[in-house]
């Protein structure tokens, strides 16, 4: 056993790469039912905030994710948009700072909105890319005061004034909730939206960034947050529509198990090698 572990210690990493790839394919090929735990406080917070918006109310979604964080943000956008459609809440989508985001947002939202019978321009609008090379701070604080100055056309170039929904959205006070979904949502949203105007803000972020944001959940500066695919899976359970998040979260079980196993085996191997060395000496 000891010698076997010691040999594992000097294994060619390529075998490990292959084993990881195979391990991660399994949950995609075979659907393994696994228990779903109750929703965390952060997920529940966002769900309750959406439930608090009356039907016909307007929510703003900032979908600023692109290829770099699609693996977690796509599911997070999908489940919230589905919930909004279930509750007949209208929404405006912006993409601050990332050029590729409007395309991803459009492709994610379009099928869900179409299925729910949402009409573009009346029930939802994709306002497109907002340049923010100068930093998010001035853009967010101006967006809160006057939406129409900062975005004058939607993603396809239609003037904002021609869209019926946008006639009702001038300042941040016309919006009931702001949901920011991207790799690492900027705390600027908290300061300049919740801090200055009191409109609740919720985040959807990569798991990696979540520990950082817990301090805002604790201080109630964020009304809710979806953390990685786990957050999306919990949300999907709340709206009773398991989809992408549930699937990816299940697959993540295998990924995490792979890392834990590798670390345990590695430490055991080192320990065995050290003991064998001591015996040899």
């Amino acid at each position, binding site marked *: 056993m000891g010698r076997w572990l010691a040999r594992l210690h000097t294994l060619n990493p390529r075998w490990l790469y292959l084993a990881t790839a195979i391990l991660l394919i399994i949950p995609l090929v075979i659907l393994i039912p696994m228990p779903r735990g109750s929703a965390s406080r952060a997920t529940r917070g966002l769900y309750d905030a959406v439930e608090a918006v009356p039907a016909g109310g307007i929510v703003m979604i900032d979908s600023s994710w692109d290829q770099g964080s699609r693996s977690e943000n796509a599911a997070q956008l999908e489940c919230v948009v589905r919930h909004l459609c279930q509750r007949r809440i209208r929404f405006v989508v912006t993409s601050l700072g990332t050029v590729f985001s409007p395309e991803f947002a459009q492709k994610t939202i379009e099928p869900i909105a179409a299925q729910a019978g949402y009409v573009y321009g009346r029930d939802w609008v994709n306002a497109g890319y907002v340049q923010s090379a100068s930093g998010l701070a001035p853009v967010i604080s101006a967006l809160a005061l006057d939406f129409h100055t900062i975005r004058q056309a939607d993603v396809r170039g239609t003037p904002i004034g021609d869209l019926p929904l946008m006639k009702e959205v001038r300042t941040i006070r016309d919006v009931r909730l702001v949901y920011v979904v991207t790799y690492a949502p900027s705390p600027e949203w908290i300061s*300049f939206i919740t801090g200055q105007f009191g409109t609740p803000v919720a985040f959807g972020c*990569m798991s990696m960034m979540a520990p950082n944001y817990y301090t805002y959940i604790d*201080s109630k500066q964020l009304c809710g947050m979806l953390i990685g695919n786990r957050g999306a899976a919990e949300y999907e359970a709340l709206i009773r529509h398991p989809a992408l998040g549930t699937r990816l979260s299940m697959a993540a079980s295998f990924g995490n198990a792979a890392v834990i196993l590798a670390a345990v085996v590695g430490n055991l191997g080192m320990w065995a090698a050290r003991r064998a060395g001591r015996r040899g000496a």
Partner: protein
Amino acid sequence: MTDPLAVWVGAIVTLGVFSYLARDNPFYRLIQQAAMGVVVGITIVVTWKQVLQPMWLSPIQGALAGTRDWTGALWLLALVPGSLWYFQLSKKWFWVSTLVSGLFVGVAAGLAFKFRILLILPQIGASLKPLNPFAGPNGFTWEGFLDSSNNLLFLAALLTTLLYFFFSVKTENRWVRTPIRWGRLMIMVALGAMFGNTVMTRMSYLIERMQFLYEMWLRPLFPG
């Protein structure tokens, strides 16, 4: 996305990148440059189509054609600061570009003060957590005790971490050294949380790629 050409190109690119694990190869570098080219190209077009055209060009056009307010023509003046950026291309005239980049530095600084104070004050208020387990409406309860213990631990983590990042105190004193040591251990627990979550994010990248390869590319190849 379901475009067969896009799927096939995507699959080849993905496998090409993964081939880097087997050995360093030129294909990876070429694909990287191609992707950079696409990023830069699309950025230029999107910035034009979604920012400069509606926000800069159409007011000018409208003003010149008389369909919009004449003040739109003033946007032509924006070309002056806008063109200053390009002095960065010359070593000698680089300083001219600082006239415009300096403006953005100032704006960022001015807004940073507002941003930070608005962000930090609610957190100071939220840190004033009740510590007394007897203070609840029903006197002492186990839930209340548990909450106060958690609040105490939270405050200990907050204050010892602050002390750990305090550099102008003398550390010879045991009363200072022990909390600093505790601070470092608390930071380690938080780092563990960040670590676990970082691992999850990195794994999600791989899962997403596997899902793409399997569901978009392989499965449609073998229907049934």
